């Protein structure tokens, strides 16, 4: 408890002056706090407004269905949409099982030192800059396949380094709040531990686990930097993560901005359209995650 230390600081803080002065200070500080809050929100609204305003002109049927292959200064983002789906799916396929199993280890098994080490290193992992995760995947594959290698799979490995700690943290949180009485009731019926976890603990936490995974996907779906060094830039549709370069929407937006070609404004329009699509994906994932949690969570009394 903090009480004694806090009481001391309470006593140590001099408060004085006339009442009108204290009330005036109170009012000034309130105004300052509200003003700071409004200032902090301005960038958010400006950003959302600009992305919608500048993104809409570039959105078209063509944008979603064609690739820039063989089209000079034109084409759409179909290759980037395919790339986003494939890279994200492979990343999730790697990260979700490992993340949830590790979270089960942390909450259900008495690991002692290994558990403390894991908790600590998951913290370390959450702080890895995304570009460093990309360099790691590059270094890993470059040692075995030479420095020219660029694969969708490399991007997925890089993104997994970023996604696994997020999945572990959120899964651990929801597994922890599954009441012990449920586990004990299951044990009392003679159910072995693994069946208790699979049939009792995981179903109870299911909505929370799904929510956590969706939020984790929303975090990595728009990553750019790690993919720049692992999946490269490409302009044809490639849905095979084990062969050839690949591109997601974020890298597409970046390369349309970076190398606009002859029709500059058209390129910028496509960059903004990709940005708008990305924001829409991220928002839908976040809202859907909230909906799943509210609608399907197990009531724990």
């Amino acid at each position, binding site marked *: 408890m903090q009480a004694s230390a*806090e009481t001391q600081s309470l006593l140590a803080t001099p408060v004085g002056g006339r009442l009108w002065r204290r009330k005036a200070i109170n009012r000034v500080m*309130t105004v300052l706090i509200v003003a700071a*809050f409004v200032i*902090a929100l301005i960038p958010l609204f400006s*950003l959302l407004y600009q992305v919608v305003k500048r993104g809409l002109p570039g959105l078209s049927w063509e944008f979603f269905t064609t690739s820039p292959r063989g089209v000079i200064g034109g084409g759409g983002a179909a290759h980037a949409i395919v790339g986003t789906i494939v890279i994200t799916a492979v990343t999730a396929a790697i990260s979700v099982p490992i993340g949830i199993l590790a979270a089960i280890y942390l909450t259900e098994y008495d690991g002692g030192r290994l558990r403390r080490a894991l908790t600590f290193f998951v913290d370390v992992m959450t*702080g*890895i800059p995304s570009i*460093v995760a990309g360099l790691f995947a590059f270094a890993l594959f470059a040692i075995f396949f030479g420095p020219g290698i660029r694969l969708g799979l490399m991007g997925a490995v890089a993104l997994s380094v970023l996604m696994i700690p997020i999945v572990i943290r959120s899964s651990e949180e929801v597994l922890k709040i599954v009441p012990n009485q449920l586990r004990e009731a299951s044990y009392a019926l003679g159910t072995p531990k693994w069946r208790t976890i699979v049939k009792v603990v995981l179903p109870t936490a299911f909505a929370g686990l799904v929510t956590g995974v969706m939020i984790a996907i929303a975090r990595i779906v728009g990553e750019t930097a790690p993919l720049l060094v692992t999946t490269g830039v490409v302009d044809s549709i490639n849905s095979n993560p084990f062969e050839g370069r690949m591109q997601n929407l974020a890298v597409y937006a970046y390369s349309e901005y970076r190398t606009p070609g002859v029709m500059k404004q058209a390129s910028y329009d496509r960059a903004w359209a990709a940005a708008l699509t990305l924001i829409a994906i991220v928002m839908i994932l976040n809202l859907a995650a909230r909906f799943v949690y509210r609608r399907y969570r197990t009531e724990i009394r």
Partner: protein
Amino acid sequence: MNATGVSPLAAAGPRRRWGDRIFSNLVLTAAIAILALLAGVAFFLLIESLPAVGASPAELPEGKSLVDYIAPLAFGTVLAATIAVVIAVPLAIAVALFISHLAPRRIVLALGFLVDLLAAIPSIIYGLWGIFVLGPAAVPVMQWLEENLGFIPFFEGPASATGRTMLVAGLVLTVMILPIVSAVAREVFSQTPRKLQEGALALGATRWEMIRMTVLPFGRSSIISGAMLGLGRALGETMAVTIILSVSGIVTFNLISQANPSTIAANIALDFPESSGLAVNTLIASGLVLFAITLVTNLAARSIVARQNIQ
């Protein structure tokens, strides 16, 4: 934490124990895989940066030694992140206080969602917003700073006409780390013991005096650790800086001119796609330095939180 100490296996037959053994080995493998992955990150980065460490300056990009190559980048990285933290922390405290203590209860949930949304926006979009919207908008402000505050080294000028400056990059980083810092602060502010807050109010304190005497002291260490987490994020942020900053590899505190030091992350993103041979190893070595800097920052943040928990 839970009933793991009790062994439900004691009475179970050998057939059941089989399933248990397989399952516990499975989760143990996942746990060890994560430790191996992290060890792999450090190991492979080290292996791939070794060639650059052993090389002579003439073989490296720009003909500089490895230290001379990375030092200006490290300076730029720390400068940009420092600007972001200095501006973001006071704002984040205000945002957290507003949500935890001032806002009407009904809109608190919606506000929390808004701030979370800010954290979920991909960095590439912040970069585009910075170069197309904030940069041009900041040009007149930077000209004003040069004319009126030019005697301060930060605003020495000549002011950039494009807005691709360290100040704008720092401001975009501010917007990006604000939700992280304020989320940490908000969490702890709302846990301030009720009895302290009500005690202060009962003694006749105004709401601000109550906040100053109970909420802020209670949340002090979490503000520090939130700031460190934000710093860690700002140090490693890549795309926004890559897009916004016009770089020239110099070391300067001048925040509003066309010539800026680059950051480690932005330099990697800019140069990596066109690099080959030792240049790649050099970039990976700089990435290792970035990894070390963020690691130290994050560990410092964690240790502050841990110390608070022990108290």
